[in-house]
C-alpha cells in the first residue's frame, strides 16, 4: 500500500530557507563590501606599507660577552627587543618561524684582547628586519674599527698601523644563515583581516538579519508553516556560513596568487583555514543572536555590535602583534576570542600547523561558544 501523505521533512524546509537567505545575502551590497572588499582593501594598504616604526626581536646567544663596547651600544638602540633567556636551539627555532629577526653572538676578540667578534645569524622568515639588524650591527662594527685605527694612527707608529691593516681587523663580523621560510607582511596581515571579516560579518550580519526578519514578521509567517524554529535558524546560519567561507576563499585566493601569501601545504592549508573560519563564524554568530535580541531598535544595532567587534579589532592581533602591547593589555587580548582565530589562522598558514596542533585555540573558541550561546538562549527573541 502506498502511503497517501509523505511525512513532512524539516530538512527540505531548512534547505529552502538556506537558499532564500543565501540569495538575499548575495544581493545585499554591504554584505559583499564588508566580507570581501574591505578586507582586501586593508590587505592592499597594509601589504604595501612596511612601516617606519618597526620593532625587531633579536636573540642573544647565552654566554655572550656583554662587557664589550659594541654590545653596550647595541643594547641601547631603540625598538629592539632582546631575548636573552633561551638556548641556542630555542633561538634558532624561533628564528626559523619568524618570531625572531636575528640571533647575535658577542665574543671577546683574541686580537690584542680588546675588541669583540659579533656573529649574526639570520633566517628567511624575517628578511627585511634581519637586514635592518645587520645594518645596525655593521654600522657599530665600522665605527668601532674606525675609532681603533684612529687611535693607532695617533700613536704615529706606522709600523703598528700597517700591521693592523694586514692582519685581523679589530672587530669583525661573521655572518651565517639558517634555512627557514620567508615571512612576509602579507603572512601577518591576511589572517588578521580574515579573522576580523569573519567576526564583523557574523556579528553584524546575524544581528541585522534576525532583527529585521523578526520586525517585518517574516519569522512569524514562517511559524505559520510546518517548519520548526531551530531549522529556521539552521537554514539562516548555513547560508551565512557558506557565503562567508566563499568570501574567505576569495581573500585567500587573491592573497596567495596576487600578494604571495604563504600556504605551506597549498590547498590543504587553505581548507584547514576555512574549517577554522567556520568554527569562528559559528562562535561569533552567537554574539549576533545576542545583539539582535537586546537591540530595541534597528539604530542601536551598529553601536552594540561595534562594542563587540571594535575592541577585538584593535586588541586581537588584527594589525599589530599582541606581543607589542604592554603586559596588562596582553591579558585582555588573550581573553578575547578573535585572538585565537587570528593566532590559529597564522599558525595554520605559515607554520603549517594541523588542526591538532592548534587544539588549544580550538578549545578556547569552543569555550567561548558555550558561554555566548548560553547568553543567546537567554536574550534571543522570536517575536
Amino acid at each position, binding site marked *: 500500500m502506498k502511503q497517501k501523505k*509523505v511525512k*513532512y*521533512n524539516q530538512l*527540505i*524546509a531548512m*534547505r*529552502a*530557507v538556506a*537558499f*532564500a*537567505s543565501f*540569495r*538575499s545575502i548575495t*544581493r*545585499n551590497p554591504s554584505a559583499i563590501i564588508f566580507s570581501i572588499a574591505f578586507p582586501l582593501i586593508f590587505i592592499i594598504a597594509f601589504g604595501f606599507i612596511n612601516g617606519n616604526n618597526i620593532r625587531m626581536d633579536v636573540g642573544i646567544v647565552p654566554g655572550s660577552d656583554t662587557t664589550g663596547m659594541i654590545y653596550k651600544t647595541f643594547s641601547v638602540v631603540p625598538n629592539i627587543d632582546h631575548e636573552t633567556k633561551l638556548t641556542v636551539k630555542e633561538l634558532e627555532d624561533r628564528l626559523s618561524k619568524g618570531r625572531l629577526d636575528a640571533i647575535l653572538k658577542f665574543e671577546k676578540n683574541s686580537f690584542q684582547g680588546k675588541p669583540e667578534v659579533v656573529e649574526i645569524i639570520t633566517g628567511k622568515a624575517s628578511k627585511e628586519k634581519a637586514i635592518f639588524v645587520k645594518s645596525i650591527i655593521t654600522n657599530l662594527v665600522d665605527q668601532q674599527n674606525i675609532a681603533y685605527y684612529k687611535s693607532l694612527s695617533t700613536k704615529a707608529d706606522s709600523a703598528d698601523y700597517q700591521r693592523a691593516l694586514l692582519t685581523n681587523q679589530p672587530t669583525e663580523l661573521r655572518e651565517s644563515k639558517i634555512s627557514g621560510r620567508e615571512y612576509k607582511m602579507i603572512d601577518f596581515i591576511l589572517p588578521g583581516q580574515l579573522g576580523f571579516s569573519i567576526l564583523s560579518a557574523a556579528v553584524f550580519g546575524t544581528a541585522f538579519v534576525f532583527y529585521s526578519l523578526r520586525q*517585518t*514578521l*517574516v519569522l*512569524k*509567517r*514562517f*511559524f*505559520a*508553516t*510546518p*517548519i*520548526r524554529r531551530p531549522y529556521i535558524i539552521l537554514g539562516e546560519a548555513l547560508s551565512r556560513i557558506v557565503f562567508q567561507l566563499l568570501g574567505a576563499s576569495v581573500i585567500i585566493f587573491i592573497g596567495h596568487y596576487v600578494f604571495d601569501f604563504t600556504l605551506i601545504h597549498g590547498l590543504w592549508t587553505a581548507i584547514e583555514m576555512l574549517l577554522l573560519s567556520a568554527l569562528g563564524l559559528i562562535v561569533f554568530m552567537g554574539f549576533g543572536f545576542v545583539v539582535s535580541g537586546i537591540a530595541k531598535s534597528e539604530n542601536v544595532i551598529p553601536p552594540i555590535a561595534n562594542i563587540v567587534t571594535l575592541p577585538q579589532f584593535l586588541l586581537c592581533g588584527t594589525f599589530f602583534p599582541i606581543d607589542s602591547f604592554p603586559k596588562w593589555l596582553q591579558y585582555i587580548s588573550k581573553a578575547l576570542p578573535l585572538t585565537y582565530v587570528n593566532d590559529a589562522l597564522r599558525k595554520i598558514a605559515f607554520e603549517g600547523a594541523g588542526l591538532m596542533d592548534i587544539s588549544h585555540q580550538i578549545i578556547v573558541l569552543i569555550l567561548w561558544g558555550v558561554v555566548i550561546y548560553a547568553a543567546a538562549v537567554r536574550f534571543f527573541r522570536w517575536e
Partner: protein
Amino acid sequence: MSPSAIIVVENLVKHYREIKAVNGITFSVMKGEIFGLLGPNGAGKTTTLEIIETLREKTSGNILVNGISLDENPNAIKQIIGVQLQAANYYPNLTLYELLDLFAGLYNTSVDKDNMLARVGLETRGKSKYKILSGGQKQRFSIATTLINKPLIVFLDEPTTGLDPQARRNLWELIKEIRDNGTTVVITTHYMDEAEILCDRVAIIEKGKIISLASPEKLIDDLIASGFEKIKEVKKANLEDVFLSLTGREWRDM
C-alpha cells in the same frame, strides 16, 4: 459539532497579564464558506485568528481544525491551512519566483509558479523583486503564498486595509474565487461594505466576546425588524461608485 463544520472554537479565552483579549468565544466555521470576524480595533479579532493559526498560545478553550485538536497536533494543522498576516513581509531582495520556491520548500510541496502568480494577477511580475511591488500587489502575493500548500482553509487578516478601491474590489473577486474552488476562507476586516459583499456569515466581536453571529442579510433584517431606519435617504449610487465609474475598475498598479 455539525458535520460540515471545519473549525470549531469553544470557550476560547486569552489573557495578556491583566487584559482579557479574548473572553470566552464560541463559534464554528462551515466548510466552503467565507466567514468574517468583524469588530473595532483591539476587539480580539487578530488574537482569535492567531490562536487558531497556531501562532499564539491560548489561555483556555478547545479548538478543532478539520477534526484535528490544536492542543494535540498543531503541526498537522499548519499543513492544511494558509495564513496571511497583517503587515507581514518577505525577503525584500528576492523575486516572486524565488519566494514561491521558498514557500514550496517550507510546505514540502511543488508549485506551478506562473499559474499561481496568474491566479492573483501577478503573471507579469515573476522576476520582479518583492520590494518593488505596490501595496495591492504585495497583498495579492501574500495571498498567493497562502495557497501554495492547497490548504483547506485560508486565514486573511485585514487583507484590504490600505488599498485603493480598485485593488480592494479585485481582491474581493480573488477571495470569492478561492472560496468557489472549495477552500474555506476566514477573514477579518473593519470595512462593513466588504463584509456585506464577501461574507457568507459574520461574527461581530466586541471586547473579547461575540455579540452577534449570522449572515449579513439576517443581521440587517433583524435590525430593520427592530424598527431601525437610516436617517439619510439612500441614493442609487454612492461616492465610491462615482469614483470607480470615473477611474475604471482595472488594477491600477500593474
